[in-house]
């Protein structure tokens, strides 16, 4: 139990569409152990992203409980230190260059000094962007932007990385490279990874594969 860094039990989430209630998640249970990599697959609309938002504490479930390392505190402050998130659409801040985008994750939680700058540069070097640190997002390709987003997710040395379809906006080749990078970085740093994807090949690269169907893990 001490190795469990994320525990979700009986997660229920319902959305209203006009007068219709759509029960997207119907009692999802998930236990994530430190250091493992998990993939969650499912068809479009199966609730993968909704589940990931709930696991990240960005949304509240209608029923069920979520704990991070045994604590129910999933607030903004804790989230900044506990987990890193990689989104399908990168979400880089267009006014900031690659280095400053990575550092933004650190700025939000505290001071940015020379040690933090060195770490951000090291991460960008590790993701293959040593020569593109001062480039704005508009000057980067899709794959490069996603690699900046990966470096940003790792900036605060999180215990857990949640990746929501990180290859969704990339071609097959670039997408595979990004997944390889993400997995290797997580392995190197001992970071736990929960990867939401609809790509079976990418999912197969994770230690544990889960499939979400009709609001529950199959």
């Amino acid at each position, binding site marked *: 139990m001490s190795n469990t860094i994320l525990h979700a039990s009986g997660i229920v989430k319902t959305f209203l569409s006009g007068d219709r209630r759509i029960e997207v998640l119907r009692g999802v249970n998930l236990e994530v152990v430190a250091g493992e990599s998990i993939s969650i697959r499912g068809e479009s609309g199966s609730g993968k992203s909704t589940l990931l938002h709930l696991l990240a504490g960005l*949304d509240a479930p209608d029923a069920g409980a979520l704990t991070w390392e045994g604590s129910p505190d999933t607030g903004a*402050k804790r*989230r*900044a*230190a506990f987990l890193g*998130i990689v989104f399908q659409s990168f*979400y880089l*801040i267009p006014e*900031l260059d690659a280095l400053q985008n990575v550092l933004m994750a650190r*700025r939000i939680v505290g001071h940015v000094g020379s040690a933090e700058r060195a770490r951000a540069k090291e991460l960008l070097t590790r993701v293959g962007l040593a020569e593109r640190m001062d480039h704005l997002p508009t000057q980067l390709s899709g794959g490069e932007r996603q690699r900046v987003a990966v470096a940003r997710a790792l900036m605060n040395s999180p215990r857990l990385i949640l990746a929501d379809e990180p290859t969704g906006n990339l071609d097959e080749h670039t997408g595979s490279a990004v997944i390889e990078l993400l997995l290797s970085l997580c392995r190197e740093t001992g970071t736990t990874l929960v990867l939401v994807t609809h790509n079976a090949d990418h999912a197969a690269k994770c230690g544990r594969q889960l499939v979400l169907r009709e609001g529950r893990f199959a």
Partner: protein
Amino acid sequence: MPWYLYLAIKQLFPTGRRFPFFTAISVVSVSLGVALLIVVLGVMGGFGYQIRAMITDTEGEIQIKSRGLISDYPGVVKKVAAVPGVAGATPYAAGMLMVQYQNKPAFPQMRGLDLGSLDRVVSLGKFVRIGSLEALDDDSVILSGGLADALGVRLGAMVDIYTPLMLAKKDGEIILPRTARVVGILEIGHQQLDSSTLYCTLRMAQDLYGLGRDVHGINLRVAPGAREDEVAARVNAILPDDVRAFSWRDSFADFLWVLQLEKNMMMFVLLFVVLVAAFLTMSLLLVLVLKKTREIGLLGALGASRRQIALCFCLQGVGVGVVGTGLGLALGFTVLHFRNDLVRAITHLTGGQELLARFYQFSELPEHLENRDLALIVVSALVLSTLAGIIPAVMAARLKPVEALRSE
């Protein structure tokens, strides 16, 4: 530097963009409003300041008046001259006259001046355009420019002077006017004072009004650094009850009130320009919030609190206010510095330079911006710009990260 300040600066002045459209439009609108306020209030203040200078240059800062006449004025002058803060005192006689030159009449105000003590209180000599104050004696007068023009009088001309005292002569008696030589023409630069005033010696004025040794009042000059209101209070303490000292502020209270009212109304009306600029900033910030919905969601996902997100957008309003006010001050003071060149250029083009001097009383556009007005302009612009950032900031803070991220 907190991240929300860093990001606010970066969003206002993005790296690699020389002309950030949103910032430029917002900053220019605030700048124009501030510059307009600086220029208008500077010129309005200049009018007031110039009028104050003219009043004190010609009347002194304090006037002693009596319900009737002031008898034994040398005794009063001696007493008040000893009051701390009084630098000089000069008696005067004043009243209405009729002046006639070649059958052309005019009805100026008379000022009877005590030439012995005049220099200690007022510096009238510097306003004499033709002739000199030294030439003034008991048989001569100095006319204001407007009066000389109205009568067609030149230096050395003889004018006839009639006083109200002559109306009291018995029936059948021939009224003989007093004849005086014009030894100077004086122009203060204020249309009201220059239009119709006759200056003569105190003795001549006393003769014309039958005052004997009495005078109508005493003008006082206040020592540098002394406050005229305090000095007036000290003078009143030693004067009998029927003789009172009034500071120039008290004497011209109504006029000064109108000037202040005009200035306040100008400020009130022109503040709407800054208000419109603030609304423009607010609408642009609202557009920015809508445009950056997903980034706001990202910041929330990265751990930013709602308060910090609100501050990020609110500080952009503050930034627009600070930069806009700074540029507005620079623009406003530059325009004020070159105001007369600008007016000359405009009147040269429109051909109305003489009309300007005639109707606006000043040949040069005066300028005087009080620190209080400057502070009010700066604070108003900063407060309105900050308020302009608050609504977009609240809107941004109310976005839930997950909904903002779903907005695509």
